[in-house]
C-alpha cells in the first residue's frame, strides 16, 4: 500500500498537493493538463525533488520520503536518458542489479533472461544508439524488471514512440510488471483506457485521489470532463 500523507510540493510559485492511498499492485495513470504537475508528482515520489516536499510517504507502512532515490522502493523510467549511451545494453541492465558493474555468471544469466523476456535476445553487447526507439524502451523496461522495486514510475517514457509501438509497450509493461504498483504519466485518454486500472487527475494544484477505470472516464467529474473535452 502506497500512502501519500498530506504531501505538499512547493517550487518557485508552483504548488501541488496530494493526500491519498493506493493498494499494492495496480496500474494507475496520471493525467492532466501540461504544467499541472504530473511529472512533479512522480519526481517527488521518486525522490528527485529534494527539500521541496513536505508530508510523508509510506510503502507497506514504512516511511521512505527521507531516503535518497536509490534507497526508495521505487524505480523510474524518465521521458528520455534511461540508458547510458556509452555503456552496452548488457551493462545498462547490470546497473539495475549492482552499481559497480561487477557481474557474476548468475547476474549475466539474469540479464540475458530479462532481455529475452522483452524480445531483445542477444543484444547484450550492443550500444543503445544501435537500437531502435522501441527497442531502447524495451531495454529500459528490462532494467526496471531487474531492479525489482515494488513501485514503478513511468514519466511518459514512450511518448516518442508511434501509436502502434506505444500500445505494444503498454501491453508489455502490463504483462511484465504485473504484481507491482505502476504509476504512469500520460496525455492520452486512450492510454488510460488501454493500460490503467485507476486514474489520478492532476489539475489546479491538486493530484486527486485515484478513481477506478473505466468509470472515471465514462462518467467523469466536471473538471476532468472539461479537460477531456470531446475526447472522452
Amino acid at each position, binding site marked *: 500500500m502506497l500512502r501519500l500523507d498530506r504531501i505538499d510540493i512547493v517550487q518557485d510559485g508552483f504548488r501541488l498537493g496530494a493526500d491519498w492511498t493506493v493498494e499494492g499492485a495496480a496500474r494507475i495513470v496520471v493525467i492532466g493538463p501540461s504544467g499541472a504537475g504530473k511529472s512533479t508528482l512522480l519526481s517527488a515520489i521518486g525522490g528527485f525533488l529534494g527539500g521541496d516536499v513536505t508530508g510523508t510517504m509510506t510503502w507497506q507502512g514504512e516511511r521512505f520520503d527521507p531516503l535518497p532515490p536509490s534507497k526508495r522502493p521505487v524505480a523510474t523510467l524518465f521521458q528520455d*536518458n534511461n540508458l547510458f549511451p556509452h555503456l552496452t545494453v548488457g551493462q545498462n541492465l547490470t546497473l539495475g542489479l549492482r*552499481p559497480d558493474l561487477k557481474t557474476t555468471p548468475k547476474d549475466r544469466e539474469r540479464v540475458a533472461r530479462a532481455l529475452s523476456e522483452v524480445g531483445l535476445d542477444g543484444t547484450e553487447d550492443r550500444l543503445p*544508439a544501435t537500437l531502435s526507439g522501441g527497442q531502447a524502451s524495451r531495454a529500459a523496461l528490462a532494467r526496471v524488471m531487474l531492479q525489482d522495486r515494488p513501485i514503478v514510475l513511468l514519466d511518459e517514457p514512450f511518448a516518442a514512440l508511434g501509436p502502434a509501438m506505444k500500445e505494444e509497450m503498454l501491453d508489455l509493461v502490463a504483462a511484465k510488471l504485473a504484481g507491482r504498483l505502476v504509476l504512469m504519466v500520460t496525455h492520452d485518454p486512450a492510454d488510460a483506457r488501454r493500460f490503467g486500472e485507476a486514474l489520478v487527475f492532476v489539475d489546479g494544484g491538486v493530484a486527486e485521489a485515484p478513481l477506478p477505470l473505466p468509470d472515471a472516464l465514462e462518467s467523469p467529474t466536471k473538471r476532468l470532463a472539461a479537460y477531456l473535452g470531446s475526447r472522452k
Partner: protein
Amino acid sequence: MARRALSVSPLGRVGAALAVLICGLYLVAGLAVGVRAPSDSIARLTDGDWAALRFTVLQAVVSAGVSVALAVPVARALARRRFIGRGLLIALLGAPFVLPVIVAVLGLLSVFGRGGLINDALALVGMGPWSIYGLQGVVIGHVFFNLPLAVRFLLAGWQAIPAERFRLTEGLGGSVWHLLERPMLREVAPSAFAAIFLICLSSFAVALTLGGGPSATTIEVAIYQALRFEFDLQKAAVLAALQAALGIGGALVALRLSVGMVQGAGLDRPVLRQSGRVAGFVDGVVILAAAAFLVLPLGMVAAKGVAGLGDLPDGLPAAAIRSLCIALSVAVATPALALAIAARGGAAQGVAMALPLSVSGLVMGTGLFIAINPVIDPAVLALPVTALMNCLIALPFAIRVVAPALARAEQAYGPLADGLGLHGVARVRVLYLPRMRRALGFSAGLAGAMAVGDLGVIVLFAGQSQETLPLLMYRLMGAYRTTDAAAVALVLLVMSLSVFWVFDRGGRADAASG
C-alpha cells in the same frame, strides 16, 4: 524544471575538502610572508623597489594597450575577410596557451634580438643595432602572447553584431565604424584590456628574459633576485606582499571592467560584407603582418633547433624526464581537482578560481619557500612544489572547462544515476568519466602543456640537479649557448604540443554516441 541537489555528494565533499586545503596553502604562504615582512615594510621599500612597482604597472598598461590596439585591425580584417588558411590562423590564436614562454622568447630574440632579422636588416642600411632588452622587449613579448587573446575577444564582439545590422547601416548610407564597430569596441575592449593587464602584471618569465637592468625590472623579477642572489628573505617577503596586493587589486579592477567571458565557439564564421579595394588591401596587409609576427619567431626556433639537434646538451635527457613527470602529474591531478571542486560548486569553486588568478604562482612560491626554508632545503622539494603550483595555476582554466560539462552530464543523466544508486566512485566511473571525456581530456592537455613550459616557481626552488626543460633552456640562453638553447626549445615545443595533443585527443577518441 530545475533539479536541485538533494545533498552534497561524496565527490562534492572531497571538493570542499580540497578547496579548504587550497585556502590553507595560500594561508600558509601568506602567513610566512607576513611573519617575514617587518611591520614597517612600506617605509623600508627602497627606490629600486618603487621603480620595480612602477615598471610592473607601466609595462602591464602598455602591453595591454598595444595588444588591444593592434587587435582592432586584425580582428576587423578576420571578421570581414574569407581566405584560405583563415580557419588555421584562428586556431593558431589559441596556441599561445600551450606555447612555452621561453620558447617564444628565444624566437622573438632571433627576430628582434642582437643577431636577429631586424638588426640584420638595419645593419644593411647602416643603422642599429637596436636592443630589445627593456620595456620594448617586455612589451613585444607580452604582445606576442596576448595579441591572439585580444583578437579572440574582439572577433567575438564583431561576430555578435547581427549581419542584418551591417546591411541596414550600409543601406542607410551610415558609417559602420561610427554606428556599429566603435560602440561594440567600447563594450568589449575594456574586458580584453583588463584580462591582459592582469596577465601581464604577473608574467614572470617574459620580464625575466626580456627586461633589462634595474630600470626594467618587475616586482616578480626583483623577488627572484632577492631570493636567489641576495638570499634576502625579508626583502623577498616585502616584495611578495607588494605583488600580492597588486595582483588582488588588479583582479578587482579586471572584474569591474569585464562584461563577460569570451566564448571560443563560432569564431570561424566570417561576417560577409562588401567593402572597397583599399580596405581589402589594408586587411590583407594586416592579416599577413599579424601572421608573420606570430609564426616567424616560432619558425626561427624550429629552424635553429633542427640545426642543433645533432649535438644535444648533456642535461637534456634528465631535464626532459623531469618536465614530463611534472606535466603528467599536473595533467592527471588538475582535471580531477577541477571535477571534485566543480561538484561542490559555490564558494569552493569561487575560491579555487579566484585565488590562483589573483595571487601569482611566483608569489605563492615565495611564500612556500619562506615557509619551508627553516624546515628543509627548498631545493629538495623543487619538483613537487613546481607540480603543485602548476596544478593550481591551471585550476581556474580547468574548472571553467569542466564545470559546464559536469552540469550537462548531471542534467541529462543525474536522475538516472541517482535512481540506480550510482554514488562516489561508481558515479565517477559510469557517469562522469565517459560523459565528460572531452572536457577532462582538454583540461588535462591544457594543464599538462602549461606545466611543461612553465618557467616560474622552478627558478626559485631548483638547484643545479633539478633543471626542467624551460630552466635548462634559460640557463643555456644565459650562457649565450644559443644553438643548444634552440635545440632544447625544439624538444620543449614538441613535448608541450604532444602533451596537449595526446590528452585532448584521448578525450575525443571513440567518443560514444549520444
